[in-house]
């Protein structure tokens, strides 16, 4: 029993040595094959990059060696020799299946198996494993590998236009990423700095997305610069417009708040509706909430002084925030709009140039204001912004009609009609000194005409309801302030009542 175990151990030891040797050769072979595959792939990638722009093709080619080597190792593990295969391999070198037979009969103890085992052990004792299984990776394989290494080096050093192009494209890509980060930072900063509404922020994000797309499609450094400049211009323009709108809305809301005290309940109701809308448009949630609270109180019967005070404070805060935003943005606040002093002033009208003057003079890059309109009547309000002329940005200033003496006084129903500002819109072309028409700073759309090197504000679109509302309100205010005979007052009121229907 003991003898059999010893013989079996000797036999297994021999087979294990053969197996180790075979596996060493197999591993070397597999690794060489893997490297050949990897270097062949590397060469192919290098050749490909000579004709097609691929940045870092050499690096990607080098990466191919890793999976090929891994595949070689995996294949080695799948194909590695076991004891049975090793025994058979040894037998095929002249042992005449002695080892295999002895290995298979290692557990048997009959006479034949013992004799056979002894015969096998005698034979293998004279067997030289290293001689029969020399560690000799094929010279052809090594030669192929060396040739491929040479091919890799050669193809790597060959210059080509495709490679230069790939390099340039990569530089643009990297730069685009930097610009993208910069723009994102800028948008974040704008959002953090200014009191913008959700919609305005969303529009800002859309601008950013558009810029990102342009950056992504950019092929040259110039494309990047252009995309960045376009975004900057659009963002600035939009910000200015948004801030002015917010400012105008805040002022309008404050004005409406100031009128509440004198109004009847139905008028208050209408004004509160308008205040709510304006507060929302200005991004002033505090005012909106206060207006809602006031509305509830009004429904319950009496609008308390506290609610009014809240409204005033909220409106005041809104105006202050809007002015602060304008100041932060370097935009001169429109003093005709409102005053943070608490004395409401009717909003400065956005009367885009009574005269077509506010052109930015390209020759005057400082954008010095060019007063337009009648200084005795109007006040310089909204700045007109000229467009770049050959890269220079001129800035002009629009004339603004100031609140004039007016000629009528009417109800606020004009505003009540369309407080959202939607509905029919009226274009007010080249308004000059019509003091009775109150445009508001930032309200309505503007049309621009390119006049060679700058833009001219030519007119403004104002909602029909706003126009009527403004007329009516002005008429009512003037009725109180002027000496109009009672009979005429009734006639005027009827007139405005009719046109407000």
């Amino acid at each position: 029993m003991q003898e059999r175990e010893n013989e079996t151990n000797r036999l297994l030891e021999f087979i294990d040595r053969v197996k180790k040797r075979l596996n060493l050769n197999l591993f070397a072979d597999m690794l060489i094959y893997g490297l050949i595959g990897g270097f062949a792939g590397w060469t192919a990638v290098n050749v490909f990059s000579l004709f097609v722009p691929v940045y870092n093709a050499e690096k990607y080619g080098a990466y191919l060696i890793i999976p090929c080597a891994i595949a070689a190792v995996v294949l080695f593990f799948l194909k590695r020799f076991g004891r049975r295969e090793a025994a058979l391999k040894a037998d095929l070198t002249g042992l005449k299946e002695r080892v295999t037979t002895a290995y298979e009969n290692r557990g048997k103890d009959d006479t034949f198996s013992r004799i056979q085992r002894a015969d096998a052990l005698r034979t293998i004792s004279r067997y030289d494993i290293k001689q029969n299984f020399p560690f000799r990776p094929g010279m052809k394989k090594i030669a192929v590998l060396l040739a491929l290494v040479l091919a890799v080096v050669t193809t790597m050093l060959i210059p080509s236009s495709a490679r230069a192009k790939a390099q340039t494209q990569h530089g643009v890509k990297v730069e685009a990423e930097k610009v993208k980060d910069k723009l994102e930072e800028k948008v974040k900063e704008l959002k953090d700095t200014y009191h913008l509404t959700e919609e305005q922020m969303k529009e800002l994000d859309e601008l950013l997305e558009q810029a990102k797309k342009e950056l992504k499609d950019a092929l040259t450094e110039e494309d990047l610069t252009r995309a960045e400049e376009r975004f900057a211009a659009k963002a600035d323009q939009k910000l200015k417009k948004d801030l002015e709108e917010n400012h105008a809305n805040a002022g309008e809301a404050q004005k409406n708040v100031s009128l509440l005290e004198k109004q009847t309940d139905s008028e208050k109701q209408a004004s509160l509706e308008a205040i709510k809308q304006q507060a929302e448009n200005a991004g002033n949630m505090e005012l909106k909430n206060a207006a809602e609270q006031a509305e509830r109180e009004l429904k319950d019967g009496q609008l308390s002084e506290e609610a009014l005070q809240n409204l005033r404070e909220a409106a005041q805060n809104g105006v202050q925030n809007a002015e602060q935003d304008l100041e932060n943005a370097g935009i001169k606040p429109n003093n005709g709009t409102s005053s943070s002093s608490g004395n409401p002033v009717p909003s400065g009208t956005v009367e885009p140039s009574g005269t077509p003057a506010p052109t930015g003079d390209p020759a005057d890059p400082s954008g010095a204001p060019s007063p337009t309109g009648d200084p005795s009547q109007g006040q310089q309000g909204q700045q007109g912004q000229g467009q770049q002329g050959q890269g220079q940005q001129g800035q002009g200033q629009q004339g603004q009609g100031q609140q004039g003496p007016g000629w009528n006084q009417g109800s606020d129903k004009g505003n009540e009609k369309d407080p959202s500002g939607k509905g029919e819109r009226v274009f007010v072309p080249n308004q000059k000194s019509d003091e009775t028409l109150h445009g508001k700073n930032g309200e309505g759309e503007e049309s621009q005409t390119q006049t060679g090197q700058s833009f001219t504000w030519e007119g403004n679109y104002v909602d029909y309801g706003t126009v009527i509302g403004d007329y009516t309100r002005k008429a009512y205010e003037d009725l109180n302030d002027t000496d109009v005979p009672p009979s005429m007052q009734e006639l005027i009121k009827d007139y405005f009542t009719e046109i407000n229907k």
Partner: protein
Amino acid sequence: MLQDENELQNIINSVNACEAEIGKAIIGQKSVIRQVLLALFTDGNVLLEGVPGLGKTELVKTITKVFDISFSRIQFTPDLMPADVTGTNLIVKEEGQNVFKFEQGPVFANIVLADEINRATPKTQSSLLEAMQEKTVTVGKKTYELPKPYMVLATQNPIENEGTYPLPEAQLDRFLFKIQVDFPTIDELKQIMHITVTGHKNELHPVMNGDDIIRIREIIRDMPMAEAVEDYALRLVTATHPELETSPDFIKKYVSCGASPRAAQAIFKTSKARALLEGRANVAFEDVKAVAVPALRHRLATSFEAIADNVGTDKIIDMLLKEITP
């Protein structure tokens, strides 16, 4: 069961001595002698094919002398009857009464030489079937056992096919080996002349006996054979079947019917015997290769294409051995 290594060594020595003793009378033909001995030690029958005068009958006679076993010869002719082979019941008078008594035919011997077996009618040829396969003879209702060891050595002439009855496939399959007896070389022929023409004869001495043959047969059965070697032998036999998809193309072209399982049995048994005669205690791939030709050549039915291309079974088996590797 083998007793010990000495017994194995004694057997190997005895067999070598037998071959040497046979070699005294049979000049050359070492491969034929070896193959006949393989068949003898594995309880098989042999079909010897060769032109007349190559010493086939002499070989059989020599073997019987060396192994000290009984021998009978049947010359097959077209008018030979089965009873002439197996024996018959004769009416004899015993104790005043006529009774049937079985008179043994020439088939009752340790080694039977069926000379020119293809000259007898199929009926007579088939009288040997039971003897070859079952080692018994049935006459009337009684079955008689043949002596042990038993072996049929049939000869046939590959030429002079006129008036012959080629052996049917079923009977061919019962021969363990079909051995081709080739013409001797000039040196061998010179030695043959020296013995036969000059009258100089070597005295042959028995080296082994029938019991030794039986003992060797038992031992050979226990000879270990590795799985890989068995697989190789079976792959060889399987590959002779043209109907299998895995068979080589030349088999599909040249073979119409492949070897039977008896071919695999023949290869297994004779390769073990060969390993023993080579002094090994295990079967090697080379043993299988060595016995494949005589074990398969009479079991393959060739196709018309093989005849047209003049490709014989030996060539087909050579191609098969090159195609199917261990």
